[in-house]
Structure formats: structure tokens, C-alpha cells
């Protein structure tokens, strides 16, 4: 296979501007075959804007974008035959039943009626919705709706699945159920591009992550490596840390953040100094825990609210 075919997605200098505002600012990234690539970023970081270019909805302001080795600017239609998209907002067709939603969507991909019916029934079973197939859309719960949208995005057996916050608003049961389905899809070799605000989800599902903010890529890499590099291994959070401890982390020096009355210390390896802090300063209001992706995210994108 030629190298360009192994890149399911290849974006170079991808840019999207709305008037004078630049939502996506010269980003370059690749998605390899069979990979799950996650995009993380605060509200307004430019994730959805990127995705809308990736399925040929938004015209690019600049840069080049290749999907399946085809040029998005010219071959958008051919590309769309091979991708499934789960948009951020649920948009089922409320005028149709659950089953009809899938059947009608299949016609947009030129799938013959009979094949569409059997594919639709398979997918409803896969998403545990077969008992609701004749129900109106309005009778579905949020989790069922999301599953329906996911089923719909699979109707054309896509090679690339683009998921914009697939599990936002779902209960833990539904989220875990969706994760399992995604595992099953991945074992069949599908490539996934995903955005999420759940760090555990990103760490659980993605082989590689890109953290972006203000339209720019901050870092990219494997989840465990990002954690190791930007938040270490162990974390101690001390409330109202005494001056002595503040002095210690500054002089040593240790990776740390001060957030309000909280001192967060990030330890790389099992260092003696870290044990000492644990014993000496971790008395009343203190948390000792493992470093997580959330630490990385907050350290890189800051703690202020967006919008």
C-alpha cells in the first residue's frame, strides 16, 4: 500500500476563518488507518469547525485536506461515500420512524432498498434498538437517540467514522455501552476521529490525542505519554499549603500549580521528596492520586472559563 493510502486523513495548514475571526488556525495532522485519533479542547477551540471541513460541509479558508488520498476540495462526494458522521447536535428525522430513519438515510448513499432494510435491522440490533424500530423518534430517550445517530452514521459501512462528542449528555451506562460498540467497530478495522470533553473517554478510546485551543494545536501524542510528560505520575493536592511547603516546591524545584487555595504538585517518578511531602504535609485537606489526562488538559489550556 502506498503511504498516502495509509493516511486516512492528512491535513496540512488547515485553516477556517469566519470573517476576521480564525476558528481553525493552520493545523496539520494525520489519521492513520485503523487508528482512533481524539481531538480535545475547551469550548470554542475549533473542534467542530475542523470536523465540518473534514466531511466537506465547510469550505476551507486555507490549507489542504486529503481523505482516503482524495482531495476534499474536488472529490468531496467520493469521500463522503466512505465516511460516517455523528454530528455534535442530534438531528434524527422526526418525521420518520426509527427504522425509516436508517432506511431513508441509506438511500442517500445509493444503497438499494432491500440491502438497506437488512443493514438497518443489523445496526439497530448492534445498537440495542431493535425493540424500538417502529417507534416514533419523539419517544426515544437521549441515550437511545444518540445510539440511533451512531447507527445512522454506520449505514454506509464507513472506513472513517467522525464522532463529534458522541457521549455528551449520556448516563454512565450508555457511555460504557457506546464505548463497547466502538471497540467492536475498531476490531473490524474502522478508523475513528473523535472529539470529547470527557478525559477518561479520550484516554480509554484513543490511540493518539491532539489537544487544541484557540484554533491551534498545543500538543499531540499517546495519552499515557502526554500524561507522563505534562503531569507526571503522581499528584498531591494540598489545601492551604504552609509557607514551608511552598518554599520546598519552588527551590527543589517540583512541577506544580497554585489554583486558589490549592497547591497541586506533580511528581515524575517515585521521588523521595514526594514521599516526604506525603508524610509531612498531607495531613488534613489533602489528596494523593495518580496523574490524569485532565491534569494535562487543564495545565495546557488554562483554568479560565471560555465564552
Amino acid at each position, binding site marked *: 500500500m502506498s503511504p498516502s493510502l495509509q493516511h486516512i486523513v492528512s491535513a496540512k495548514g488547515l485553516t477556517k476563518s469566519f470573517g476576521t475571526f480564525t476558528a481553525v488556525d493552520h493545523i496539520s495532522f494525520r489519521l492513520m488507518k485503523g487508528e482512533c485519533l481524539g481531538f480535545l479542547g475547551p469550548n470554542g477551540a475549533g473542534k467542530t469547525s475542523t470536523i465540518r471541513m473534514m466531511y466537506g*460541509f*465547510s*469550505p476551507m479558508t486555507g490549507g489542504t485536506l486529503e481523505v482516503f488520498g482524495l482531495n476534499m*476540495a474536488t472529490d468531496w462526494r467520493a469521500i463522503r461515500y466512505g465516511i460516517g458522521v455523528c*454530528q455534535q*447536535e442530534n*438531528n*434524527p428525522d422526526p418525521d420518520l420512524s426509527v427504522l425509516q430513519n436508517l432506511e431513508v438515510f441509506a438511500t*442517500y448513499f*445509493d444503497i438499494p432498498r432491500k440491502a438497506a432494510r437488512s443493514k438497518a435491522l443489523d445496526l439497530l440490533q448492534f445498537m440495542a434498538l431493535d425493540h424500538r424500530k417502529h417507534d416514533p423518534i419523539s419517544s426515544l430517550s437521549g441515550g437511545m437517540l444518540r445510539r440511533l445517530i451512531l447507527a445512522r452514521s454506520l449505514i454506509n459501512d464507513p472506513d472513517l467514522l467522525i464522532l463529534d462528542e458522541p457521549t455528551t449528555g449520556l448516563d454512565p451506562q450508555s457511555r460504557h455501552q457506546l464505548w463497547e460498540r466502538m471497540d467492536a467497530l475498531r476490531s473490524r478495522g474502522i478508523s475513528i476521529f473523535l472529539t470529547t470533553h470527557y478525559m477518561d473517554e479520550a484516554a480509554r478510546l484513543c490511540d493518539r490525542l491532539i489537544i487544541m485551543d484557540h484554533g491551534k494545536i498545543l500538543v499531540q501524542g499517546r495519552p499515557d505519554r502526554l500524561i507522563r510528560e505534562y503531569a507526571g505520575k503522581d499528584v498531591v493536592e494540598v489545601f492551604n499549603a504552609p509557607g514551608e511547603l511552598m518554599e520546598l516546591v519552588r527551590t527543589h524545584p517540583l512541577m506544580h500549580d497554585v489554583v486558589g487555595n490549592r497547591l497541586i504538585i506533580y511528581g515524575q517518578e517515585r521521588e523521595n521528596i514526594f514521599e516526604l511531602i506525603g508524610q509531612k504535609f498531607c495531613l488534613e485537606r489533602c489528596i494523593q492520586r495518580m496523574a490524569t489526562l485532565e491534569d494535562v488538559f487543564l495545565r495546557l489550556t488554562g483554568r479560565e472559563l471560555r465564552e
Partner: protein
Amino acid sequence: MKIMQVPISWRFLRVWRRNLTVYRRIWHINFLPPILEPLFYLLAFGVGLSALIGPVKYMDQQISYLAFIAPALLGVNAMYNAFFENTYASFVRMYYQKTFDAMMATPLSLHEVITGEIFWGATKSFIATALMLAVVSAFGLVQYPHGFLILFLAFLGGLAFGSLGMFFTGILPSIDMFNLPIFLFITPMFLFSGTFFPLENLPLWAQQAAMAFPLTHLVHLSRSLCLGILSWDLLWSVAYLVLFTMVFFPLALYAMCRRLIH
């Protein structure tokens, strides 16, 4: 806008088909208005008003008021069906249901989506006119075989008024604002297109202004066909409806692209 070069193909029929599928789910409700409405009108105007009005002079013929007004109702019906489909109904699909957004993640282009919508609007005009034509014919108010041409006319008129409606859907910010084009264009057309009284009753300037209304031409064609009058002059009216469509169809596509593609 490179992404949208040459983006119309037969695929627009998929979108048309989707609307047909929805229509068929509640066809019995969809069938009632075009059957009942003309009955109400014929009763009110034909039986009630005719007695007051007496015969009307139309193209050197004396015809009953009922025979005068029935073809106009067919034209108005074609106008309403397409215009309301491509304003309120299309707006709901576009804005509230995000149906077009979902379609845009499939091999359909936005041009095809909008074309499918407009053809669907014309199809609704066609179906409604067919039903209404059957009712009106039962009163002996339609000459055949000319009357069959009214079905094609309904489709053409549907394309014209659907394109106009879709254009407003593309430019109006909220669904309440459709009151504006209805108040400014649709209602005056309804009243002053030679529908309820002959155009000749109007002052000359108003007659000339009325010639710009597509409904004037639709009603003129419909009335001629119902009365069994065929003349070459009718082609001018057909040409006007085609021209109107050829102006507003691209305008509708343009307005919708501007609205939806960012």
C-alpha cells in the same frame, strides 16, 4: 465556494423521495384539504355569491361565476401548496429539525437538497391540483381533454412558487417573518390576479402591474384550459412562468447556500 462546483445531479430525487415517504405516512391527512377546500369554496362562492353576481364576461364568452372562479381556485391551490411547502415546511426541516445538516454528511450536495425540496413542493401542487381537479370536474366545470394539461400547469406553477418560497426561506431569519412575503406578495396575488373578478375591472395601471404576478398567468392558463380555449397566446403565460422559475430557482439556491454553508 470551490466545494460546490457542478453540484446538481439526479441525486436530488433522493431528497424528493424522503419527502414522499413522510407524506405517505400521513397521506389521509394530506389528502383532505385539497378535496374539502374546493368544496367549501364552490359552495360559498358558487351557490352563495353566484346568485348575487350573475354571469361574467370572459374572453367574449358569458360564463357563470362558478365557471369563472373554479379555475382560479385551482391556480391558487397550486400556488399555496408549493409556496407553503417551501416556506414553513422547508424552514422547519432546515432550522428546527436540522434535516439538511444531516443530509450534508452524505453524498448529497446542498444544491441537490434544495432542488429536491423545490421539486417536492411542485409535486405537492401537482397532487393537490389532481385531487381538486377531480372535485371541480364532478361539477362539470372542466373541459376535457384540455383539463389534463392543468396537471402539468400545476407542476410548473409549483416550481415557480416553490422557488419563490425557498428564496424567502433562504433569507428570512425566523419563521414568523413569513408573514411578510405573504402579506406583501401572496395575498395581493390571491386577490388581484384575475381570480375573483376579471382583470379588466381594474384601472389600467393595476392591470399592467398584475401582469407581473405569476398567479395572473397561472390563473389565465388554468381558466383557458377549463373552458377548453387553446390559443398560441397562452404560450406567453407559460413562458412567463418558466422565466419566473429560471430567475427564482437559482436565487433560492444562492440564498440557501449563503445561509447554510459557512
